[in-house]
Structures are given as structure tokens and as C-alpha cells.
């Protein structure tokens, strides 16, 4: 009896796999796009600035301004592409997006400094992407800080000797890739799993075979488990592949407990599968299922803390993120990858995903029986 119960589930799961891998296009679409995307997005998604084009408008004739400029010429962050001579040249360069910023050094810059007075440098930035502008401004501010400290030390500093000594934990060189790559893993897996599961019931509904499935000796729980297995198996295999790429190719070390990572992954997959099956059970056609999956994926990715911090969101939106499994999974991924976390520090992230998963699966099972046409 018990044996039969599981062999029926196994048979359904096997059938689901065959349906997915039946034709070449479906096979390819499950494997290649996620791998290609982790490669492209992994390299593309970074907030770190590199070789940003800038222009310099030096109205000063002296030597000190040249020393000041030389730090920008030697910097890898910036690339000085133009030295301008007139006020009028500033606007077109910025308007046309030729440069991100213009450094405007005032006349008498060198004289003022040599007389012990303050000299002024104006930084004119293109604010069309205000985050890039702010990041660039921060780079310049810290370069200026170095210059000031050096200048004061050479020319007899007065005032209190209070310097800032900064250390960054977990990500010493502040590489944004370390932060974003685990997020890309979570988002890609979410997309694949949700589409696989969301289409599984809708496809049968559209073809009319779901009614047949319901009159087989299998009970809805068995159908539910059989439908859930492919998504979880594919998710585990694909995540493992992507994890290997992240560690080997992008050289991001796993500092924490890999078992905790896999427990988190497993719970995340159960939650995502549950959500996918609910969408699938509600939809009558595959088109509705894909659109439904999409209407979930986009908010889930945006409100997960993947690219922008949850703490910056308004409080009501922050509350909404608590029903998003990706939120918890990203904390686990970053916790294990960067912060070296284990089970204890991550416990509060595990159980919400388990609850989301169980609630959705039960609801999907209920919908199987109660939404009939």
C-alpha cells in the first residue's frame, strides 16, 4: 500500500520530467540562459566605477593645481578625456553624456594654497543617474581628503589631529560584485522554478488532461508532490552549477557553513514551488500562468534587497517584503558567502520560508480540487 503510494508519485514526477525535457528547445532553455545570464550579469552588475570619463577645467596657472590634477590622471576610477579652456565648454560635455563630471579649478588656486588660505574646486556632475553621481563624488571626496592631509602635513598642520581609520568587514575592498552575484543566483533560480511549476498544471488544464489526472487513483496530495518534485530537483542542480561558477570563476569565497546554504536553498525552492503551483492552479491557460508568474517575479526581485537596500524603502513596503521568500534567501546567501554565518545566526531566516512554502502548497492542493471548469 505504502509502496504503491510512493510509486504513483514517482510515476507522476517522471512524467513531469519527460514533459519538460521532451523537446530540444525546452531542454536548452532550462540550462543555457541561466548560465549565460550569470556570466553576463555577473560582470555587468556593479556599482563600482571604473574608467569613468571626466573633463578638467583648470583656470589656475600654478604648480599645485597640476599636482592636484595628477591624482585624477593616475586614477583607475576616472579617465580624463578632455581639458577644457572655456566656461562655455562645460555644458555640452555634460549634456551630451560625454563626461560624467567636470572639475573646475578656480584661478589663483595655487597662490591661495601657498598663502595658507583655502582654495576651491567645483565639481559639476551629471545627475541623470544620481547614484553614479554620488558614488563619483564620494571617490573625489576621499581623494581630496588624501590631498588635504598630505598638504597639511607638508606645510605645518594646525588643529586637532583626528583622522578616520576605516575598516570594512566581510568585504574589505568593497567590491559590489560580492554583494550582487548571490542576488543574481537567487533571482535566476526564482525565474526558472516559477516558470517550470506555474506551467505544469496550466499546461494540463489547457490540454484538458488535468481532469483525467484528478480521476486517477492518485489523491491531490500525491499529485501535488509529484508536480512539486521536478521544480525542486531542477532548482537544486542548477543552483549547484551556478554556485560552482560563482566560486570558481568569480572567485567569491564561501566563508560560512555550506550545509546552512543548502538548507536555505531547499526551503527557498519549496516556497517558490508552492507559489508557482498556486499560480498554476488558478490559471486556466498557459498565458495566464506565465503572466501570473511574471507579476510575482518582478516584485519579488525588486523588493528582495537584490540591488537596493530594503532599509531604504518606506515602512509599508518593508512590511511587504516579509512575504517574499527571496528576501530571506538573499540574506542566507550573503550571510554564508560573505559573513561566514552558520545555522544559529540564520535561524530567523529559515522558518519564514518554511511557513510560506507549506501555506502555498496546502492552498495549491485545495485549489486542485476546488477550481474545476
Amino acid at each position: 500500500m505504502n509502496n504503491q503510494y510512493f510509486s504513483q508519485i514517482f510515476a507522476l514526477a517522471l512524467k513531469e520530467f519527460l514533459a519538460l525535457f521532451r523537446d530540444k528547445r525546452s531542454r536548452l532553455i532550462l540550462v543555457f540562459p541561466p548560465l549565460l545570464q550569470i556570466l553576463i550579469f555577473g560582470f555587468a552588475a556593479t556599482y563600482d566605477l571604473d574608467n569613468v570619463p571626466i573633463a578638467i577645467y583648470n583656470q589656475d596657472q600654478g604648480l599645485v593645481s597640476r599636482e592636484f590634477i595628477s591624482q585624477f590622471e593616475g586614477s583607475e576610477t576616472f579617465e580624463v578625456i578632455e581639458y577644457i579652456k572655456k566656461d562655455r565648454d562645460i555644458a555640452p560635455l555634460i549634456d551630451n553624456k560625454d563626461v560624467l563630471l567636470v572639475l573646475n579649478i578656480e584661478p589663483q588656486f595655487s597662490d591661495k594654497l601657498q598663502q595658507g588660505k583655502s582654495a576651491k574646486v567645483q565639481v559639476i556632475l551629471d545627475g541623470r543617474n544620481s547614484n553614479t553621481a554620488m558614488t563619483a563624488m564620494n571617490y573625489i571626496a576621499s581623494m581630496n581628503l588624501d590631498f588635504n592631509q598630505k598638504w597639511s602635513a607638508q606645510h605645518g598642520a594646525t588643529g586637532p589631529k583626528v583622522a578616520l581609520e576605516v575598516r570594512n568587514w566581510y568585504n574589505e575592498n568593497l567590491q559590489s560584485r560580492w554583494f550582487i552575484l548571490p542576488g543574481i543566483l537567487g533571482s535566476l533560480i526564482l525565474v526558472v522554478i516559477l516558470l517550470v511549476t506555474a506551467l505544469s498544471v496550466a499546461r494540463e488544464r489547457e490540454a484538458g488532461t488535468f481532469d483525467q489526472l484528478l480521476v486517477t487513483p492518485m489523491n491531490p496530495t500525491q499529485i501535488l508532490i509529484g508536480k512539486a518534485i521536478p521544480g525542486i530537483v531542477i532548482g537544486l542542480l542548477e543552483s549547484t552549477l551556478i554556485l560552482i561558477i560563482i566560486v570558481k570563476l568569480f572567485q567569491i569565497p564561501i566563508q560560512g557553513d555550506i550545509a546552512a546554504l543548502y538548507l536555505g536553498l531547499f526551503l527557498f525552492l519549496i516556497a517558490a514551488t508552492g507559489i508557482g503551483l498556486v499560480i498554476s492552479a488558478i490559471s486556466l491557460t498557459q498565458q495566464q500562468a506565465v503572466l501570473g508568474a511574471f507579476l510575482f517575479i518582478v516584485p519579488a526581485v525588486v523588493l528582495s534587497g537584490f540591488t537596493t537596500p530594503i532599509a531604504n524603502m518606506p515602512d509599508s513596503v518593508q512590511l511587504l517584503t516579509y512575504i517574499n521568500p527571496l528576501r530571506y534567501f538573499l540574506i542566507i546567501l550573503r550571510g554564508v558567502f560573505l559573513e561566514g554565518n552558520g545555522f544559529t545566526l540564520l535561524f530567523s531566516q529559515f522558518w519564514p520560508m518554511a511557513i510560506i512554502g507549506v501555506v502555498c502548497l496546502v492552498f495549491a492542493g485545495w485549489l486542485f480540487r476546488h477550481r474545476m471548469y
Partner: protein
Amino acid sequence: MAENKTSARNMRLMGMLRKEMWQIIRDPSSIAIAFVMPVVLLFMFGYGVSLDAKDIPVGIAVEQADIVTQSLSDSFEQSEFFKPSYYHSIQQAQQALEERKIDGIVWLRSNFSQNLQAGKQAPIEIIINGVDSNQANITMGYIQGVWQSWLIQFSSSRGIALNLPVNLEQRVWFNSALNSRLFLVPGVIAVIMTMIGSLLTAMVVAREWERGTMEALMVTPLSMKEMLAGKLIPYFILGMGSMFISVALAVWWFGVPLRGSFWVMVLVSSLFMMVSLLIGLLISIISKNQFVAGQTAIAASFLPAFLLSGFLFDINSMPTIIQGITYLIPARYFVAQLQTLFLAGNVWPVILSNAFALMVMLVVLAYWVSSKSRKTLE
């Protein structure tokens, strides 16, 4: 005779259009996606995606409190960017950092004030959680700001006029308050239109292939061109409708200034919409099944528009190969146009060069679609 031909063609096209319109009206999910999704997405991005840090939880570890450390704590207290909490030892503060209760620590050792009074080196140690490196950079910038103004205030209170050798004066054009919503909302419009154009069309046409109704259409007198036009026109209208909703919300709800011309925006948007529609059509012709079409459309439209368009991440900072790939993403051109039209105005060099790129894409895609979509069966 020639007249008869055109009228017959018009009739066929009108018939096709009517069929497509009914199909859209009967299945409310595509109307939902065209009109509800822009609203949902704009609100989500408008409120959910913000790079403006506020109330950053920072721990101030003061090993020995006195007037000097108090004045520094007050400076953090007064800053709108920080929400300080206090610890008496660095161990407590570090534990809070590990538990993610605070994002950074300002550590004043027990001999800080003493060294400062004696004119010795008195460093302030800063520890920041670097996991989110962008946030860490921003936090560091704010800490420097607080530290610098405290230093000037502290010196002047003791009769020393502290003047910094070089003073930076920051002028941010187009978005002087550095409000990230102003650049994110125009970018979202590009993401929304990409999804409506590509995802919706890909799904709809793939469904016809899967159900075999495409073959049924093929045996009618309809030419392939008429068939495709009949498919695309209704979705073009839906897409432009959602564009108007998005722009209205951006301007009147989110307060994004529209400094360029509205009509120029309509023109470049319709150009971009056509490119998106053709991409959707191409995906559906190649995949011919809804599962593959859905996966491909998301992989080829949503994520690239989100990550490779310059909407969030600076294209100039990407590795050269990836920069090359971004030239293949139509959203890249549209995002540049939208951000410029909204925030900067009619800057013709930016608008025209990007419009030209979109036009090249349009021609290439149209040729590709027509060569792929001969009336042949496999």
C-alpha cells in the same frame, strides 16, 4: 482592378485586427498586463527601489564618555542620515554588527579625549559592514561629512580657525537633491515597455503556434505581412496606452520633471515599442511553444532591460566585452533618451544618436522576422 486589390487587402487586415482585438478583450489577462502592470510596477519601483540612505543604524562605541565624545555623538544625532545607538565597549558593538542590528561602528578608544587635548594623534576608528558595498560607500561618505563639520566646529570652539586646504563644492545638474527616484522612474518606463512589447507578443503568437491556429491562418488568403500587422497593431496600441499611463504617473504622482518635449517622447517611445514588438514576435516564431517563449522573453527582455540598460548600473564601468553586449539591448538607447528627456530636456545629440541606433535595430529585426516567417510549415 488595383482599387479592388487594395480594398480587399484592407478588408482582410480589418478582419484580422477585429479578431485580435476580440482575443485581447476576451482574455482579460493581457489587458491587465498592459494597464495594471505599469501602475503596480511604477509604484513598486517608485517606492521600493531607493538608493537614498536615511536613518542608517550606526553604533557609537565610547569607552570613556566626556564632553568631547559627547559633542561628537551630538553631531551624529543631528545628522538626518544616522540613527545612532550607544555602546560602552567595542565587543558589544561588534556583536550588534554581526547580528545585523547596526551597519557601522564609530569607535572612540578610552584615551581619545586625552590624546586629543595633548595634541597627539587621536584616531577615530570606523568599522563598516561592507557586504553591501554601495551602501558602505555612501555610509562612509556621510560619516566623513559629519566628522569634517565636527572638526571645524570643535576647532573654532577652541579658538582655532581650521581651514581645509582644498574645499570641494558640489554642483549636481539635473537632479540637485540627488533624489534617486527621479532617475529610477524614467528607467522603469523602459522596463515596462520592454515587457509589454516582448513578453506579451511572444506569448500570444507562441500560443497560436502551439494550438495549431497559426496553420489555420496560413491557409486563408491573408498574406504573411497582413497577418503580422494584424497581430502587432493591437499590441502597439496597448503598449502606447501603458506608456501614457506611466508618463502621467511619473509626472503627476512622483513629481519627476518633464523638461523635454512630450511629443519627442511619444516619437521615441513608439520607435522603441516597435523594436520591442518585433523582438517578441521573433522569439515566438523561433520558440513556437509557450513555455520556451515565456522563458526566452524574460531572459532576453526583462533582466537585460533591468541590468544592462544603464538604468541602474553605469555602463561605462562595465568590462569592455559586456559594454559591447549592451549595444544589442534596445532598452539601453531608450533609457538614455528617457532620462535625458525627463531630467535634462531636448538634448538633440543624445536623442538623435540613440534614435538612429533604434532605427537600425528596427530594420534588422524587420528583415529577420520576415525571412523567418515565410508561410512554411516544418
